[in-house]
């Protein structure tokens, strides 16, 4: 069937099977492999994308359900002026290890900050409850989200941390 899909600000006209999952259309048809598949049952959150400002497990919804809605994947987070603040904080706070959960974590965190720009630690942890990470113990991820929520939105874009910090 024909499907009009707005992904990362771009309109796509696609031919999809009616039963196609959103994750498969994003990964296989649009090549957005930043959307990761870890469990195929909505438990690990690696495939999280934002659909109309809400975090969604893209393995659990049909592509057709996103018709007429705005889909944001991790590939759409960075803009012309560089990485999103959340992306920079994930790098700076060491929240990225194997990185396979990272896109989903970023999208769940982004969806949280859209509705709650200054969340409590408890709210951050709850927002990430559906995103599993086996590397970090979550400490650095929670710290990164907190740091992003504490910075004014118009803070100047800093280069990704490459130099060692004395933390």
């Amino acid at each position, binding site marked *: 069937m024909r499907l009009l899909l707005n992904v990362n600000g771009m309109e796509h006209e696609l031919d999809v099977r009616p039963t196609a999952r959103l994750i498969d259309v994003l990964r296989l048809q649009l090549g957005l492999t930043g959307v990761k598949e*870890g469990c195929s049952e909505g438990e690990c959150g690696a495939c999280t994308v934002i659909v109309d400002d809400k975090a969604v497990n893209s393995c659990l919804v049909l592509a057709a359900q996103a018709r007429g809605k705005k889909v944001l994947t991790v590939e759409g987070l960075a803009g012309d002026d560089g990485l999103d603040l959340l*992306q920079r904080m994930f790098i700076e706070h060491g929240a990225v290890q194997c990185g396979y959960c990272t896109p989903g974590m970023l999208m769940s965190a982004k969806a949280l900050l859209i509705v709650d720009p200054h969340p409590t630690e408890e709210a951050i*942890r709850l927002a990430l409850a559906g995103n599993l990470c086996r590397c970090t113990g979550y*400490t650095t991820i929670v710290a990164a989200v907190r740091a992003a929520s504490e910075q004014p939105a118009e803070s100047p874009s800093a280069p990704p941390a490459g130099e060692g910090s004395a933390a």
Partner: protein
Amino acid sequence: MTEDLQYVGRTYPVHDAAQKVTGELVYGSDIHLPGMLYAKLLLSPIPHGMVTNIDSSAAEALPGVVKVFSHLNTPADVYCRARLTPEQELCPADETLFSEHVRFVGDRVAAVVATTQAIAAAAVALIEVEYAELPALLTTEEAQRRDDLPIHPAGNVFFEHEEECGRRAQSADAVVVSSTTTTPRIHHAALEPHVCVVQPHSTGGLTVWSTSQGVYGARTVVADFLGLEYHRVRVIKAPMGGSFGGKTEFILEPVTAYMAQKTRRPVKLLLDREECMIATMCRPATASTIRTTCSPQGLLEDMEVATVLDAGAYASSTSDYAVHMCKKITKLYRLPHYHHRAQAVYTNTPVAGAMRGWGAPEIISALEIHMDRVAGELGMDPVDLRLRNLMHPFEVDPVTAMSIGDGRVRECLERGAAAFDWSARRGRDPGRGRYRRGVGVACGAHKNGMFGKFAEASNMTLKMNEDGTFELGASLHEVGCGIVTVMKVIIAEVLGVSPDLVAAGEADTSSTPFDYGTFGSRVTYVVGACAKATAEKLKEEIVTAAADLLHEPRERLTVEGGEVHVQDDGQRGVAFKDIARLSHMRHSPAITASVTYYATSNPASYSVQFAEVEVDCATGLVAVTDFLAVGDVGQAINRGMVHAQFQGAVQMGIGYALYEHMDVDEAGRSGIDGFKNYHVVNAPDMPDIQVLLVEHSGDDGPFGAKSVGEIATVPTAAAVINAVNHALGTSLSDLPATPEKILAALHPEEVGG
């Protein structure tokens, strides 16, 4: 932290963090090649039996299906998936590509290769297989008893190992304590499922994209199986989403390579979560009985240990695991006499194999839960009992006959107890109400590489580019803990330049020199030491070239800040980039250094961990409310990542203690088919983990650094269980301590009716 270090000991992101936060990084599961086919496995639904008939005609008739593979059209040759190098011992070859004799629920029976993943999956469902069932041996006890029913020709108890040292002696008033601890079969739960992609070449060779922890090992296993010369098989380490040991062994590589070779098309085999859980491998389930004799004052006199490991259906690395379970306790405690016997047993259950800690979390859980039992018998504080018996720096581990090096387990315990306020918290009454609080401690020991077993070595080449930047040629296998960054930081420290000026990548058998890979707690200690030695040699080459350019003797030159200066002449010097550029025009087209570094020591790494828990006696649920991990790391190279290693390791250890298991039912099924029924600790359930590093640079690692990633999870489960036992006055030692087990321990009168 040593004061004069410029880059070592600071905090850096993993080398590919920017590619990971943007979704740019192409992981193994993201690889797509032109003309690529997709494979889907058909797994045995029964735990033990013979395949008597396979009808794949309907599958083959499905449009898009290229070929169906099974034991009917593939070699019956056996191989060992865990073999790292061709002449390696303790690698029983007992596995085939596809089984006629199926030995567990999850054994490979057939595979379909098709043009899409969906067609391959649909076709697998059309294959009809008939089985003649055999009695299934689902526990080690059954398998030991039924030697009339061997799962493999070698017999069910296929390996035994013993260690004994010291002389048995017992004081007249000695106290004897016995306990048995069982540890569960668990899933690694790396977020990226297992995957392998193989491209066959018309030259007769293959390119393999492997998300394994050792490409050279993968190459020998694949090439030997296919009968190819090694230079025709190129194995590339693909970026991977976590491993924790679960991708150390070459589970998918041989079968994917075979299917690619036969179809003459690139083939991708990507497992789903259930397949990863049941059909790759698990941490082995173990049972250890420890009998300790000690003086009334708490000095250990004798320890007798018997361990049984459940290898599951194939031997994999379990025999080596058994050996190493006998080599941990004597790194931790002084023991006048120690005797340990370990047996590895085949059962009709999922295959066991490598997992973070390689036997240490299993045996240390048993040991440290047992030590609390001993403390209880003696009426001693658990910290005091341990302090009386822990090893001192530079003592010799009697089992390996090697020094533990500058191992600081005592300091970890003393400093940790103070930081955790152990005495006061342990002294508090856990309470008798619904919610009870307790604290627990456990010590753990592990190693640094494989010296003593292999010729432990690494080899690297480092070159200076024409603009004064650097490139490392090394077989690095990043599993997510930042080893590429570690190498860059070490090289940067030696050369006195920013780590950003050093490029390093991952392993590729066609272009990077031999290295075993990322396992065995060897990377920082051995590979990192190689990086340091290589950078030091390159620095000499740079000075030689500068001496030529400056017309000065080498002895008058010093290196600082990316330049070579003439001593006592602040005006004269030459920058690295000029040395590189000018040397190209003069005598030396390549400023480069290659080093083979041989490890000559294998000290112990230690961690001591303190847990506080709150148990809900109504539900049996445990909340870990506070946790301190103390690490004897020598010297942190990437400080933030060392902390993060402990934080993630404790998360894994809490799961090991309280939630995770893959027990099988009477039909041989685990009942676990996804994360919905396998609880990985999530963000709301995790306490913030405090980390305290004890740094003494007294060993041979780069700048004194020692291993972190494995030792960090070794004592966690025991610390949590000991805290639960303190809270409840119980003696739980059957992991995981699920709510059912906790309620049963609280209400023993209700158990068994």
